[in-house]
């Protein structure tokens, strides 16, 4: 996994505090983002971080090394997040998963407005940040997590497929749908802001 430093499994098994700290430093934020993406609840996402590391450390013998340690942690965290989602009886389960067949028709883009933000606007505009959060929150969970892992955390298609237990084809289809859906929502938002001069 790009950017992840090598961490000694032997040191982790031996209870080395430095190895635990290195593991936490390398993966805690990534796991938090994944859990937050599924659960949309910061406190619950922190619980998942805790659960994931405890589970991983106490079951290190189950890590077979076929995938990277990072991918395995993602898998543990994703399954824990889905379990928690299912236990929320008062909340409906995520919307039906979209078809993953590559041949399934992808809705054609509707908004064809050109928009461009300056770097200052991108970083400083709290309203834009809120809109980005709202738009990604509108996506079905199944698309949101793929977009997070591929386009935000920059995992490869193969790593994303392993982390989520999907085929690589399904990852590609979901990523494509997620990108187009987000683009559509942001285009509507930015075209409505056009009078303020934010749209080219």
């Amino acid at each position: 996994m790009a950017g992840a430093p090598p961490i000694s499994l032997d040191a982790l098994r031996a209870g080395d505090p430095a190895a635990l700290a290195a593991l936490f430093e390398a993966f805690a934020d990534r796991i938090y983002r994944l859990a937050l993406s599924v659960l949309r609840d910061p406190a619950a996402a922190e619980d998942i971080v805790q659960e994931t590391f405890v589970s991983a450390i106490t079951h290190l013998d189950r890590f077979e090394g076929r995938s990277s340690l990072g991918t395995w942690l993602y898998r543990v965290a994703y399954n824990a997040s889905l379990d928690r989602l299912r236990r929320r009886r008062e909340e409906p389960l995520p919307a039906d998963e979209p078809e993953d067949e590559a041949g399934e028709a992808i809705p054609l883009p509707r908004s064809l407005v050109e928009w461009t933000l300056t770097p200052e606007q991108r970083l400083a505009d709290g309203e834009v940040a809120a809109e980005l959060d709202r738009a990604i929150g509108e996506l079905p969970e199944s698309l949101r997590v793929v977009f997070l892992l591929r386009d935000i955390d920059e995992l490869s298609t193969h790593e994303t497929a392993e982390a989520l237990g999907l085929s690589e084809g399904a990852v590609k289809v979901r990523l494509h749908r997620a990108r187009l859906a987000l683009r559509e929502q942001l285009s509507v938002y930015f075209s409505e802001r056009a009078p303020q001069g934010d749209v080219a």
Partner: protein
Amino acid sequence: MNCEELIRYLSDYIDRNLSDELQADAQAHLSTCRNCHVVLDTTRQTIYLYKQTGRRGIPVEHRVDLFARLQRSLADRKDCSS
């Protein structure tokens, strides 16, 4: 390549996963179709915006406590198993 095909291949085009032949076909279409060019450009900007702003981590004020909680939890388990 027509607009529908271009949209179908858009993510593979962005990720450079197309064959040389399809990549060239897509480029040829994009050079003459303003609408598809807008979709490509705004899709790239969408990805860029999320890449820049989406890497939120554990809130700083919770991070130390969370790690301490993890250490305690692992220590408790070790005590129980010994």
